[in-house]
């Protein structure tokens, strides 16, 4: 088990470094950074001075190593646009994106798990197909379009929910639905498959044979076992949602890291873009690692591989 853990940790670390390398290269695609920092007023001497001051005169490899060193010390540099360190910008925006991601995950689970269970229990009936259709629809709708439709209906027409901002939990309802619906089909299918497996297994048959009530069998025994893989996948889906939240945050003017990154992209504020990409990748890596560990604990066969 320890060997498996160490190997996985090692790979995760390498992946993080590779992603950081890619996001760093992204920064240097944007052209001459010194000119960008100096702004249009800067004279060529000033730009040279900046180049030296920020270490931009050194070879790219040296710069990358320096940047990586700074990142390890949690120093992500300064935003070109705001008078603020990237670290502070991200620290102030991250809770919003995390709240959004968490609520979206809740939405996805609340929709997908009951649908999955229902589909499994009523296998191959119209209920099964209906459940699948609801889930598939979520995957087919462009999330930004779904978000706009939600605004038209629930905010402007019905006045039930606020449109934009992050002041209360109610502000997160529509963004969470728009973001969470997309993840529904994967979780629903997994729940359904898991339920079918478990329902066909020996111990459920035994439980039934012992005369336990069907509802009790379903929820106490079957669902609990069927949900184990779902938990692992949910963790990974959460990582995907953080990356995908940029579109939703833009539509709802939610000031999370997605919106921060999008604004930064438009302003050529690349230290911010780079840091956000790295951060989301890191969160994803940690989540997949956790999911893998969870699977490994639950299913010893994986460790052997």
């Amino acid at each position, binding site marked *: 088990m320890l060997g498996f853990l160490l190997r996985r940790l090692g790979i995760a670390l390498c992946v993080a470094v590779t992603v950081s390398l890619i996001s760093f290269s992204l920064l240097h695609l944007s052209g001459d950074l010194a000119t960008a920092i100096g702004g249009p007023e800067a004279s060529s001497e000033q730009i040279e001075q900046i180049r030296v001051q920020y270490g931009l005169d050194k070879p790219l490899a040296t710069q990358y190593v320096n940047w990586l060193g700074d990142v390890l010390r949690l120093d992500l540099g300064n935003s070109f646009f705001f008078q603020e360190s990237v670290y502070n910008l991200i620290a102030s925006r991250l809770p919003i994106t995390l709240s959004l991601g968490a609520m979206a995950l809740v939405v996805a689970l609340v929709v997908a798990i009951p649908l999955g269970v229902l589909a499994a229990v009523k296998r191959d009936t119209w209920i099964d197909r209906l459940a699948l259709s609801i889930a598939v629809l979520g995957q087919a709708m462009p*999330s930004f379009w779904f978000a706009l*439709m939600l605004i038209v209906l629930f905010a402007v027409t019905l006045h039930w929910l606020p449109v934009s901002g992050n002041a209360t939990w109610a502000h997160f309802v529509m963004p969470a639905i728009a973001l969470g619906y997309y993840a529904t089909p994967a979780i629903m299918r997994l729940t359904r498959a898991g339920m079918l497996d478990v329902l066909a297994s020996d111990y459920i048959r035994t439980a039934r044979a012992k005369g336990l009530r069907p509802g009790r069998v379903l929820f106490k025994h079957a669902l609990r076992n069927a949900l184990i893989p779902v938990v692992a996948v949910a963790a990974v889906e959460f990582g995907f949602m953080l990356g995908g939240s940029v*579109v939703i945050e833009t539509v709802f003017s939610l000031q999370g890291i997605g919106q921060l990154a999008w604004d930064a992209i438009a302003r050529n504020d690349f230290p911010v873009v780079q840091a956000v990409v790295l951060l989301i990748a890191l969160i994803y890596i940690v989540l997949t690692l956790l999911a893998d560990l969870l699977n490994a604990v639950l299913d010893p066969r994986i460790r052997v591989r």
Partner: protein
Amino acid sequence: MSTPATLAINDYLPPPSGLGRRLRHCFGHRGFALGAGLLLLIIIGAVCAPLLAPHDPYAQDVMQRMKPPVWMAKGTWQYPLGTDKLGRDYLSRLLFGARISLFIGLAAAVISGLIGTVLGLLAGYFGGKVDALISYLITTRLAMPVVMVALASASLMGGSLNVVIVLLGCLLWDRFAVVVRAAVQQIRDAEYVAAAQALGCTTPRILFSEILPNLVGALIVVATLEMAHAILLESALSFLGVGVQPPTPSWGLMIAEGKPYMFFSPWVIAIPGVALMLLVLAINLLGDGIRDLILPDGRN
């Protein structure tokens, strides 16, 4: 936003036998029939757009702005789906927009399919160090937030049809690689591959003439998924203004351009949105259907 790799491996294993003899069941499968029918309609609309479109999709007419579609009180058959804010015929733009979506979906799927298949073949066939390296590439690719990287790159390079296609092609290959790798690992030791090796066939030949044909079914399934994915991503990029640029009639762009009118004339965004949804739905249903048909027990 894609399904994790661990799922994909189990979900899209190649068929145990050829899919030919199952084809006659195809249209008995409701999802497949519905998806195929819908997709066929959209393809016909896109291919025959110049014949079907009542107007030039680029022609502006400021006197005919924001005409409602025919089913609404003031709608006329002159503009069956109404006109946009610059007086361009909505139906014509929708038909030409189908070409953009289909083209981007197809092109991105082909590019990512090529990259993913080659990587998957190499990883699966050679195993060992090659496999470790390619698996590592796949993991790295999965860790990168697709939407954000696509946004940043498209904005850096300046959005255009070509940029979007290349970008999506380079970002969506992971599932192809995962599936092909897993499938090749299974086939590698099959008798006919061993026979080919014994006959002295070269490695590329074995890969492309012996192994690849067995993966066609799985590849088609993944291709439908990625095509749908690419179409949705393109619409999001265009919606945010870094994808296909105006005046090209992309559906995502049409939603962006109709957005100012959504509170009082919701049909302006409803129409392209529903079109996108139907197209993606059709592709997804088709993909699901193919998978069910070639892997009857796969889902359970």
